[in-house]
């Protein structure tokens, strides 16, 4: 091991806090002795690795997938006008937008409500499965995938806000009224559960596979 001018190990090699027998705070980066349980800097809880991380990831992920089913089967919007009553599901709403030629908006809603949630289910399952199998490959790509999942998940909430705005705005006695359907709450819950699943994932687990200390 090389040493620096300070006479220390100097961190010239890539060393994890865990390998050094230390424990690091993931909120503020503060490094502590291995037996610390609470961060002295930000008062957050300390865990060398969140050992129950994957259990929580799977539990929230399954809850998110279950809530996603009624979110797609039941109506998101209930529209009542003088002449008719109609209900539209998530996909039905997208088709309606396409029908009126709003392709850009249809694409936004489709991506936020279908592509992102489904992609997120697959991505989180793949990340958790990779850690369980002890995959050493493509760590950088898997870490990048984790970053994307964490960043993009909340954007699924767009359609819930659309329903909320329309329901608050379109309340004209007798002429027209829009109300939220069952799917709105199921969908919101699905997004929240999947966000909790992604937040429960400890990305340090991706990087542990090629380390000898376990």
């Amino acid at each position, binding site marked *: 091991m090389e040493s620096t001018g300070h006479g*220390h*190990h*100097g*961190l010239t*090699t890539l*060393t*994890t*806090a*865990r*390998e*050094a*027998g*230390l424990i*690091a*705070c993931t*909120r503020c*980066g*503060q*490094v502590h002795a291995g037996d610390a349980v609470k961060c002295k800097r*930000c*008062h957050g809880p300390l865990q060398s690795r969140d050992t129950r991380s994957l259990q929580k990831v799977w539990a929230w992920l399954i809850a998110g997938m279950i809530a996603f089913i009624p979110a797609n089967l039941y109506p998101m919007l209930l529209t009542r006008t003088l002449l008719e009553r109609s209900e539209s599901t998530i996909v039905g709403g997208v088709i309606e*937008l396409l029908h009126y030629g*709003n392709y850009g*908006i249809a694409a936004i809603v489709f991506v*936020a409500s279908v592509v992102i949630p489904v992609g997120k289910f697959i991505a989180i399952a793949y990340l958790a499965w990779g850690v369980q199998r002890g995959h050493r490959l493509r*760590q*950088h790509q898997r*870490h990048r995938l984790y*970053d994307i999942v*964490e960043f993009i*998940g*909340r954007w699924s*909430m*767009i*359609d*819930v*806000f*659309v*329903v*909320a*705005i*329309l*329901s*608050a*705005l*379109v309340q*004209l006695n007798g*002429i*027209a009224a829009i*109300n*939220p359907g069952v799917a*709105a*709450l199921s969908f919101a819950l699905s997004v*929240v559960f999947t966000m909790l699943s992604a937040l429960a994932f400890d*990305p*340090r687990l*991706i*990087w542990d596979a090629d*380390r000898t*200390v376990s």
Partner: protein
Amino acid sequence: MHIDPATLPPLDDMIACPHCDTLHMEDDLPDGARAYCRRCGALLLTAESRAVVWLVSLASAAVVLMVAAVSFPFLDLSLQGQHNGTSVIHAILVFGSGKAIPLAIAVALFIVVLPLVRLLALLHALAPLVRGVPPTPSARVAFALTDQLRPWAMAEIFMVGVTVALVKVAGMADVTVGPAFWAFVALVLITIFNDQIMNRFAIWKALDTGTTA
């Protein structure tokens, strides 16, 4: 690999990457520089001497904008002589009067309550630093809260939702936007800018040293 603890630098001189646990020396960066993790490439630390001052001034402006954004008329819908103009507060109250209560509570939390809590906690944590006073004992709890709530404050996502809703309703009625709409737009821009310049590790460092630099 086995490391003799005696060969390591003092613990307070190091930081660990929150994504891959790799240890780094927490060196002083030149102004405007950014430090990335050597192993996974995550952004660790930025050095921006005016960041704290910017954060405090913009967060103060954002609180005022938030009050305007929720209380002034947001959108006004008219159809066959009937009007329905609403403020965000009014909308949440109307919306939450029936069986949509859980949804109304969730929306109120995501777009008003949590963004406001984040702003106030950030001001509580950082305002003393700008005035040159040491941070209060609760500053650390307040900043941890600001940081933890980040994914749950969804004002910017709400604005995209408003755009989609406007397009959907444009075919059936006339919609005009009120002053609160523009307050919300400004609020969202400030929030995005603030989250860009807010570096957690830099702020923890500032709270440790009690200075803005």
